[in-house]
């Protein structure tokens, strides 16, 4: 009885915090719109959503891999970086056009991530989870520093030459570039294909079955190792495409460029509910929007943006660790 009362009052408290956050957010938005005018605000939202779409391409890989093997693949942000560099070499050195370059980046990232899984994670599948987590961090550092060697990608910032000229359209005062249109278009196309694969195809259904119960999946004759590889491949293809789009949007690339977007996408996946695909998408859009709003409107925003992102992570863990779409972990009987 007492426990019940405690639970209820706790729930009320949590809702009160949600209400306060929602109110604060609303108040902040109203104040911002009044201060700077709606155009500036809408511009920030659009830029934020654009960033969020790119985060989503990384966050989906985090969340899918977590759903299947309960591992946070911290090397995922570095796979994203390899995608950016692959397209750089294809476009700048070999004069490939945009579409083949992005396809090549997706392919290279897929192979890379499948190899990482086979070499680094698969041998540890029955080890304590902390072992594979530390390995993931190790793989991440390895990719960053190995590719920073002068005979690989090199340690310096490289200017990325875009495969097409930038065009800017003025829509009632709001500036929209062809880059934004391309990013949103490609991301939506990839997300729809992902949804199709997961919902409709045999391997996609096997992925969902494996995420729910590995030994039941084995008893159906599902090759669980194959499904895990496929999941890493799918996540990497999205991250590779994300890397190319990110480099086109912010045309300075570096082998450490994957760290921050990778971590932000991780926060986004946790915010949406780790393991949930719609969660990763919604979380990423929120994350990207927050990022740009902080930079645009907060004093010293560009220094605070990362702080705010990780503050969100801490708040999610404190208030609702399962995130927006996450279901409470079912207890195993």
């Amino acid at each position, binding site marked *: 009885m007492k426990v019940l009362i405690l639970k209820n009052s706790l729930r009320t408290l949590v809702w009160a915090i949600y209400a306060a956050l929602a109110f604060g957010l609303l108040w902040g938005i109203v104040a911002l719109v009044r201060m700077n005018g709606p155009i500036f605000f809408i511009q920030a939202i659009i830029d934020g959503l654009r960033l969020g779409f790119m985060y989503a391409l990384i966050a989906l890989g985090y969340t899918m891999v977590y759903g299947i093997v309960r591992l946070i693949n911290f090397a995922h942000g570095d796979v994203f970086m390899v995608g950016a560099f692959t397209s750089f070499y294809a476009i700048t050195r070999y004069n490939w056009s945009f579409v083949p370059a992005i396809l090549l980046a997706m392919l290279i990232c897929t192979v890379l991530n499948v190899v990482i899984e086979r070499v680094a994670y698969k041998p540890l599948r029955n080890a304590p989870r902390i072992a594979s987590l530390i390995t993931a961090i190790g793989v991440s550092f390895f990719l960053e520093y190995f590719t920073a060697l002068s005979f690989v990608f090199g340690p310096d910032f490289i200017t990325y030459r875009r495969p097409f000229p930038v065009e800017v359209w003025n829509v009632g005062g709001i500036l929209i570039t062809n880059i934004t249109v391309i990013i949103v278009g490609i991301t939506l196309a990839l997300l729809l294909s992902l949804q199709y694969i997961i919902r409709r195809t045999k391997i996609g259904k*096997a992925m969902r*079955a494996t995420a729910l119960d590995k030994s039941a999946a084995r*008893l*159906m*004759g599902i090759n669980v190792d194959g499904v895990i590889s496929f999941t890493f491949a799918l996540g990497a293809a999205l991250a590779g495409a994300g890397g190319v789009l990110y480099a086109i949007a912010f045309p300075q690339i570096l082998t450490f460029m994957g760290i921050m977007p990778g971590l932000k996408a991780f926060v986004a996946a946790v915010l949406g509910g780790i393991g949930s695909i719609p969660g990763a998408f919604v979380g990423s859009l929120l994350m990207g929007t927050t990022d740009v709003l902080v930079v645009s409107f907060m004093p010293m925003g560009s220094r605070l943006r990362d702080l705010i992102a990780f503050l969100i992570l801490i708040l999610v863990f404190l208030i609702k660790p399962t995130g927006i779409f996450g279901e409470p972990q079912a207890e195993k009987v």
Partner: protein
Amino acid sequence: MPLLQVEDLHVAYGAIRAIQGISFHIEAGEIVTLIGANGAGKSTTLRTVSGLLRPMQGDVLYQGRSITRTSPERIVKMGISQVPEGRLIFSSLTVLENLEMGAYTRKDKNEIRDTMKQVFTSFPRLEERRTQLGGTLSGGEQQMLAMGRGLMSRPRLLLLDEPSMGLAPILVDEIFEIIKTINAQGTSILLVEQNAAMALSVADRAYVLETGRTVLEGDAKELLHNPEVREAYLG
């Protein structure tokens, strides 16, 4: 040649020896049951036959070939399907998708459709609920789904682990009727049950397991009237 022959099987989970010398066989067309208390090694035996566990010693022969080094996928393909303890329905997949997963190792879409029709004939309630999520079914329906899913690979040998667990008596009767029908249609069955009376009444032959060993075997109807068995398992 028996359909399945298990010889002196020893299986351990790490340092814990779950099975220490189990032997039994199944002839084509039979229903064979393994009975015994909790922890006697019944589920471990089934998991080993399905290839989820590797034995330390002993052998599992299916149609005369050893399958102790064969992958679970291959074993399903060879014609052994398991309906696991606790049913293990894929809760956020629909009934239809659960059944499709049962046919995962098969390629021919038309044949799969035919098998699904047969399953729906045996379990009409599944057809009514085909678009519902597995997790929203009642316990009895989930058991039917688990059995239907197990049949989707068109097994020659069906392993049933505690099909009556947690079901109301009237549903238990229904499930056991269906088991008899499945067997009559030509599928051999290895049945593991705590409900020994029920299991012995449908089985042809039975083995009694105790702490990881086979201690008694015989005709199911005879065991049903064996005083020792009655004392220990039929209360």
